[in-house]
């Protein structure tokens, strides 16, 4: 098979010209070009909406799933083949609205998956309804009336759900986004990148220019160190990250809010119970011998001994 250094497919990318998704796609492809996984070692998983099409444009395995369900699909993929590099692309509505329960659950599991939230505050493909990250009182172009529901804070939700790497980036700042994506992929555990992006067609408030005026990088802040090297630092760093999470308006931080390098993942916990897990995960096990089960009658008796009753005549 052909290897493609740029991880691009030949398909025409059918997003609106100027869409923030282009920046996210480019940043993922650049990150992959530097990390150089084989295309079959990567699984790009997505939900529904404009961002859902991302896997088709990346030359690696792509699984375009159901609205809101990219996380559980990816969970099954990763648990059965932990060697795959699994990256989720989902919209803000997909991951934080219809799929919010799964978003929280992934944090609890700290499974080694990277979640990229395409956060543009609107539902694009259904023509501009408010997404769960749109602040109350805002009236983006397509809304008949201002939004009357409060916004979710993706950073705060991720932090309190247990994600061990939580970051924010801006889709139009591709180099920075690429760096964050690389760090997220290399982090062992559940990672979230909330990517702020314009929707050129439906969001006339949070435009590229609006963001450019406000965004600043956390890593340039004096004394900012989000990395947990020892478990006892966890709550202090979480507290710092949470305070930063609420900063919005005139100044909007991007960069890494929190990175806990001390917490084990759910696959580590599985491996504690099933010692062969990493060597023989579900996807890489023999289950038959010449078309017959691995178990024979004797093994069956041994395994299910507690269900066996010997008749004493």
């Amino acid at each position, binding site marked *: 098979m052909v290897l493609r250094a740029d991880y691009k497919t030949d398909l025409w990318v059918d997003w609106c010209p100027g869409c923030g998704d282009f920046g996210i796609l480019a940043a993922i492809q650049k990150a992959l070009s530097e990390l150089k996984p084989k295309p079959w070692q990567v699984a790009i998983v997505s939900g529904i909406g404009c961002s859902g099409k991302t896997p088709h444009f990346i030359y690696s*395995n792509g699984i375009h799933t*159901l609205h809101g369900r990219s996380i559980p699909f990816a*969970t*099954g993929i990763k648990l059965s083949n932990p060697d795959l590099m699994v990256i989720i692309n989902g919209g803000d509505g997909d991951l934080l609205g219809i799929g919010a329960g*799964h978003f929280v*659950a992934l944090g609890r599991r700290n499974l080694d998956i990277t979640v990229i939230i395409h956060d543009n505050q609107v539902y694009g493909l259904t023509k501009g309804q408010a997404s769960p990250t749109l602040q109350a009182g805002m009236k983006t172009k397509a809304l008949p009336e201002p939004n009357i529901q409060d916004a979710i804070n993706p950073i705060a939700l991720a932090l309190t759900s247990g994600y061990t790497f939580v970051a924010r980036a801006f889709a139009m700042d591709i180099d920075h986004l690429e760096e964050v994506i690389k760090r997220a992929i290399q982090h062992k555990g559940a990672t979230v990148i909330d990517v702020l992006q314009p929707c050129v067609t439906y969001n006339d408030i949070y435009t590229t220019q609006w963001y450019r005026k406000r965004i600043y990088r956390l890593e340039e802040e004096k004394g900012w160190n989000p990395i947990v090297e020892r478990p006892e630092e966890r709550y202090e760093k979480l507290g710092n990250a949470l305070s930063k999470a609420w900063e919005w308006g005139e100044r909007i931080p991007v960069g890494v809010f929190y990175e806990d390098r001390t917490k084990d993942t759910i696959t580590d916990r599985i491996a504690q119970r099933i010692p062969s897990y990493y060597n023989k995960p579900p996807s890489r096990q023999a289950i038959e011998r010449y078309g017959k089960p691995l178990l024979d009658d004797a093994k069956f008796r041994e395994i299910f001994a507690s269900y066996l009753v010997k008749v*004493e005549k």
Partner: protein
Amino acid sequence: MDEKSSEMRILLGGPQGTGLETASQILAAAYAIGGYRVYSMREYFSNIKGRHSYIGLRVNPEKQPLAPIEGPHIVAGIDAETIFTHFTEAIQDTIIIYDTRVFKTKLRSIASMEKYFRDRVRETLEKSNYDTTVEGALRYASEELGAKSIGLDYQAILNDFSQEIGISKYQAQRYLNTILVATIANITGLSLDELKRGFKRRFGSKVEIIEDNMKLSAMVYKSTAGLKDKIKISTPHHSPDEYLVVNGNEVVAMGKIVGGLRFQSYYPITPASDESFMLETHENLENYVDKSGGIVVLQTEDEIAAISAAIGSALTGARSATATSGPGFDLMVEALGWAGINEVPVVITYYQRGGPSTGLPTRGGQQDLFSALFSSHGEFPRIVISSGDHEEAFYDAITAINWAEKYQTPVIHILDKFLANTTITLELPHLEKIAIERGDLLQAPPPNYKRFKKNGSPIAPRVVLGAENAVIWYAGDEHDEEGHIIEDPINRLEMHELRMKKLEIAHQEIPQEERAVLYGSGEDFLLVGWGSTKGVALEAIELLKREGYKGAYLHLRVFEPFPKEYVAKILSRYKPEKIIAVESNYESMAAKVITMNTGFIFKKHILKWTGRPIYVKELSLATLRILEGLSSREVLSYGA
């Protein structure tokens, strides 16, 4: 049409949380060790502690019972509610064991009893001029039905016991169920040694518990000495050397383990979760089987996640499944369609309970056939298998994963609560007869591999996600050969047809007489059913032989692809008015599926939707009424 019994039937009742299940396990084990075949069904409320639950045991020296039957030989109650709930089920010579301290208890004081049931009990007693007390109920059972009552002072026995072994009266309450166990054991002729085998079986290495239970049992044997051997059946002559003692959940888990399942995701729901627990208990398969790794069992945040994770896992090549019941399945159907369009081999084990909505969450039914067959929008192939007993359930669990991989499509394996929660003695399966069929699964992709290749068999060669040198796309949208989104009309025409054609291939390949099985050859009538109707139908046919009617039973095993030619052929042998659909639903769903597939319209139905299983005698009587032209549709309602 009562018959002289050659078996023992025992009903054990009491509040949930008082160890009834343990009691039945001890007795079942003791009888099974003695070579008897045991059947033990369980009815319970959606409640943790306090509401009435009961267990129906059948013990047979020769034949495996597979259905509940009316007329217990023993009714043993922990409390007054058991007596009030079951005294009308007594027959001639039934022995009712009760606690003398509840003898004067009034019906109206039983707070845990549901009002409608209590009202019906009151009417029954008052109509025949009996007091609405336990005493009145026992007198009714004795005078109207011919039962005998045996009162024991449970607390006095426990007091003596607590003094003997030096525990508090409060601690002794945990042994209440042992009083019933020992009384029943003594009445049915088990020696103390034989009973001890049951305790050992249940408590294993916990020697102290076994000894304490034996002390209490000896005391009970002494105080019930006059009852020894009151009911005794012949010793078994043809029992195998060993049995499995398993319920439906357990036997499916065993099938999945043998069948190579390596991933199961689930969300807790009655009556399905126990299967996942059993898989998790056996996750360390590597300890037993060379080459094998473990089984990953994941409790998810909801059923949508459960099926989605199972599908994701299946893409990587691991045999994957989820297990659920109606409400959970409802949440899964969107993802079911995704598995359909993406040709994913995933298995959904579907334990039916009483619906709709939460319905009767701990009771049974067969109301979800349409749901299993028709749920999820759009058209896609699915295979639907239904198990009628534990043995079928074991093999079907394996067949389900085989067919899922062979035909690259989701498989729904339907069972029901009656099977899930019924424990039986089962002869060991023969594993050498089992095949593991993975279908057209390639270890490595050929050059220019395309997952959904069009110009070949409708079942395109499958390469798993993560296989070296293979890049694969999957999408919920209609896709091209590579898996990319495409809305082209001609591609749609071809892809859709290729997917649907897989069912035709399955229809040609799987023998029809395995998808519908005819039992018996009686020409007078034909019962038609599915799932746990099998056991009760076969026994009813036996019973009806004595009334001079020779019948047969057509058992539906696979609803998709439906064995239409074979079923039509069998049906054509009988006059339409002699063909009776027997189902635990209102609509007679299976009959309608047969109509859809064969054009045959059923004229006769026997239906039950109380959430309780169909009993042998009520089915026999209903069949008789239909055969004698008295009725076309019989609705059954036996059972508390």
